[in-house]
């Protein structure tokens, strides 16, 4: 028998909408929570605030899912809700962004061992993403981590195609520079 974990999104959505099956919603939450948090952190740059925003977004999803007409577009619709919630949260908290020229990469001791471990890689890549402008970090994560196409990113963020491409290009350049600044010679282990 097929368990919820292996079911596609559309089947879970139908299960939740038609049968009010909360377990199906929980499976969707578990499937998307980490990705949503990664997206939210790109905008808010703070894990606690990002978790609050993701929670709020999921509550909105819970109530609006029955009225979603094109269930196949769930993924982009969901990320759009997450992003909009983050923008509102940012406005509400009047966050002063810590990125760009004024911010130097945090001084962290480069790892001693020759090969960076997997956790180190994750730590440094997230640290580098934190230094990027929110739009650049957001677009990079949506493209590489969520594996969304440019058109889907357009739908989820409301950005133009040109802006997405520019942000992707600049984001790649900037993250590579930031990683070099963070790790020095150790960068060869990463790039």
């Amino acid at each position, binding site marked *: 028998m097929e368990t919820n974990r292996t079911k596609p999104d559309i089947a879970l959505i139908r299960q939740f909408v038609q049968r009010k099956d*909360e377990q199906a*919603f*929980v499976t969707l*939450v*578990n499937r998307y*929570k*980490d*990705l949503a*948090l*990664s997206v939210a*952190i790109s905008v808010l740059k703070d*894990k606690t605030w*990002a*978790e609050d925003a*993701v*929670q709020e977004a*999921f*509550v909105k999803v*819970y*109530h609006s899912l029955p009225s979603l007409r094109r269930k196949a577009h769930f993924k982009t619709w969901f990320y759009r809700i997450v992003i909009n919630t983050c923008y509102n949260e940012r406005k509400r908290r009047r966050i002063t962004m810590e990125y760009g020229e004024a911010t130097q990469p945090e001084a962290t001791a480069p790892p001693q061992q020759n090969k960076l471990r*997997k956790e180190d*890689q*994750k730590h440094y*890549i*997230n640290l580098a*993403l934190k230094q990027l402008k929110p739009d650049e970090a957001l677009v*990079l*994560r949506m493209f*590489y*981590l969520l594996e969304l196409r440019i058109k889907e990113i357009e739908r989820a963020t409301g950005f133009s195609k040109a802006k997405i491409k520019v942000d992707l290009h600049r984001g*790649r*350049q900037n*993250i*590579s520079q930031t990683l070099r600044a963070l790790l020095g010679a150790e960068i060869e282990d*990463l*790039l």
Partner: protein
Amino acid sequence: MTEKEEQYLADLLKKSTVETSEDFTDRLLVAVRQSAAPVKQSVSPKWWLVSLFLIAGGLIHFLVFRMLNSASSAPVWLPQGGLAAKVIFSLVLLLLLNTTLRLSVQEWPLISGEQRE
């Protein structure tokens, strides 16, 4: 940036997932259930008195206007149009009164049903 570097960067970015805290799903479900619960309307009985008073006041107001307007001595600030204009004028007045009272009552714990310590 070379193609190889770009590929490496892409692989690296795939590892940039940030994990939610352990109790995230539990907290979320609590939030969802709370948001789904019906909102309790805590209208105290005294509010009914205030509302009744306002409705009655509005009606009296309207009748007085009608009387005044039927006489030739109607004040200039009264609407000179038909019945609809007078109804709208009275409703706006009522609304203003209601809002003012509501605001003042909020600052007045005894009327809003709260007990003073």
